[in-house]
């Protein structure tokens, strides 16, 4: 009985992970294909990487995306951290329900709606107060900051609610004022969550096509927009090469980050459980 069940579970896992990873692996393999056709293996080659790096449009778009990503991840951290703190530590206040709604809703809101509504906001603002003058990197950054901040808030909040509040109370008891407590006690303790939140925001921003398409202006094409317009026409080996690069970079970043986070979690758990051994 037990054996049957675990066989089922193991095959579910194997099938599931194959489903998740085979397509990605195929993209990586075919990025080294000499030929242009995806289905025919014509020998090993790195020529698509070379042609990718000679594609100025692609490089510009990537540069735009990186700048937007760093900016909006940083801003999202600055906004999302206090939001998460408010959600888990500030108790009840007027408008709390709306606040938590504005944090939960962006997580599931269809991107087309977010994109359209932000564009209309920018247009209206420009009419009313003359800002933002035209659309471009800054409007994309604002748009990304908004939904990334919601993600950061959720990450920070869940980390804080798993944390013993009496540690912060102890600091207050010893004479530290609220702001000091936040910077000296709370912040160091949630550092892994902040790192995770920043990385999450960065990749979400780097990945966004729909919202950016709505609020972008001339000259602010991002990498996903560029990829999308070429992919629409079908498979292209250059995109395979780009995909491989993105997947590798992100994987390495994530593995390092998770290692760091896991290590500090383990230390924290040991502190909490008190291993006398």
């Amino acid at each position, binding site marked *: 009985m037990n054996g049957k*069940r675990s066989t089922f*579970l193991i095959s*579910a*896992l194997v099938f*599931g992970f194959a489903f*998740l990873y085979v*397509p*990605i692996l*195929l993209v990586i393999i075919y990025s080294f294909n000499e030929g242009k056709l*995806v*289905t*025919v293996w014509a020998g090993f080659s790195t020529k698509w990487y070379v042609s990718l790096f000679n594609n100025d449009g692609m490089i510009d778009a990537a540069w735009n995306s990186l700048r937007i990503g760093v900016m909006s991840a940083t801003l999202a951290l600055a*906004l*999302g951290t*206090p939001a998460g703190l*408010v*959600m888990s530590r*500030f108790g009840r206040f007027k*408008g709390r329900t*709306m606040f*938590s*709604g*504005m944090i*939960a*809703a962006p997580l*599931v*809101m*269809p991107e*087309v*709606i*977010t994109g*359209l*509504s*932000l564009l209309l906001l920018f*247009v209206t603002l420009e009419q009313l107060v003359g800002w933002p003058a035209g659309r471009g990197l800054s409007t994309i950054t*604002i*748009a990304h*900051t*908004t939904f990334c*901040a*919601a993600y950061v808030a959720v990450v920070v*909040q*869940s980390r804080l609610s798993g944390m013993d509040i009496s540690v912060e109370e102890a600091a207050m008891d010893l004479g530290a*004022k*609220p*702001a000091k407590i936040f910077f000296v006690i709370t912040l160091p303790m949630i550092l892994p969550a902040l790192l995770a939140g920043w990385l*999450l925001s960065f*990749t979400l921003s780097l990945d966004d*096509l*729909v919202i950016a398409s*709505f609020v972008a202006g001339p000259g602010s094409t991002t990498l996903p927009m560029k*990829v999308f317009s070429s992919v*629409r026409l079908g*498979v292209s080996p250059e995109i*395979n090469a780009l*995909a491989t690069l*993105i*997947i590798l970079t*992100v994987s390495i970043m*994530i593995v390092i980050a998770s290692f760091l986070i896991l290590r500090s979690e383990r230390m924290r758990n040991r502190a909490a459980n008190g291993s006398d051994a």
Partner: protein
Amino acid sequence: MSSDKLTLKQRFDRWMIKHGRVLVIGIPYFWLFLFFLVPFLIVLKISFSVAEYAQPPYTPLFEWIDEGITITLNFGNYLFLLSDSLYATAYLNSIRIAAISTIITLLIGYPMAYGIARARGSMRSVLLMLVILPFWTSFLIRVYAWIGILDREGLINAFLLWTGIISEPLIMRQTEFAVYVGIVYTYLPFMILPLYSTLEKMDVSLIEAALDLGCKPWQAFVKVTLPLSMPGILAGSLLVFIPAVGEFVIPELLGGPNTLMIGRTLWNEFFANRDWPIASAVAIAMLLFLVVPIMWFQHIQTKQEEREQ
């Protein structure tokens, strides 16, 4: 005045203690309010105006006439949505496709989440990481990967033709089937993670107790595991269903020209037809439909929080 004697720092401290709380709440509140909530009001407003060849391409909603504001509400856009069956079809299609994909995702995701939750220590972290990893890599690229697989000249067809199972290539891309594959594939991690976190918290001895009291394994699953993992099932399903309804990239890249989904319709109204008022009306109609699931999702989130505290 005593405040003259205070140093700048002391004055700042006093000010912070008095207003710090308001400030910490206020800044993110203001940002989200301005860039998340207000935009919906504007969408609502524009959905009631008329398209025009102008910049921006719609009539203003408020007009100053004789020093007073008049508000012109124009229900024409909504009437148009109702009259043209294209929109109704797109809505129903979106809901159907999202619902079916959610169910498939649940069926694949549940055993995986269960398997991960029952795996041992370090194995568990590795498996979990493997679930999260694709979620971090580009969404667009993961959808793109399926083009090469499902295409007429794609890998599956090439393989099947080579083995001789088929003699004509199958049409898989540009069908609804491809859309299901795309949604299930990209949203699977969103289903697994909340499921995992409820299943992991569940005490194994509960199942043992059920078995001990005479349940067959499948009965124990139906009567104990399933009800206890309900919050995870709901959270995961909503996390898949809500964004899937408005999905644009997947139907655009994998679906056929007649795979109508509402997100795609909105996109076309906006970018191809440049009819902003109709696009806004489409968005509002979609939002009205999604308000209930979104509030439900928020409710689940809040309950979860309270339980954790």
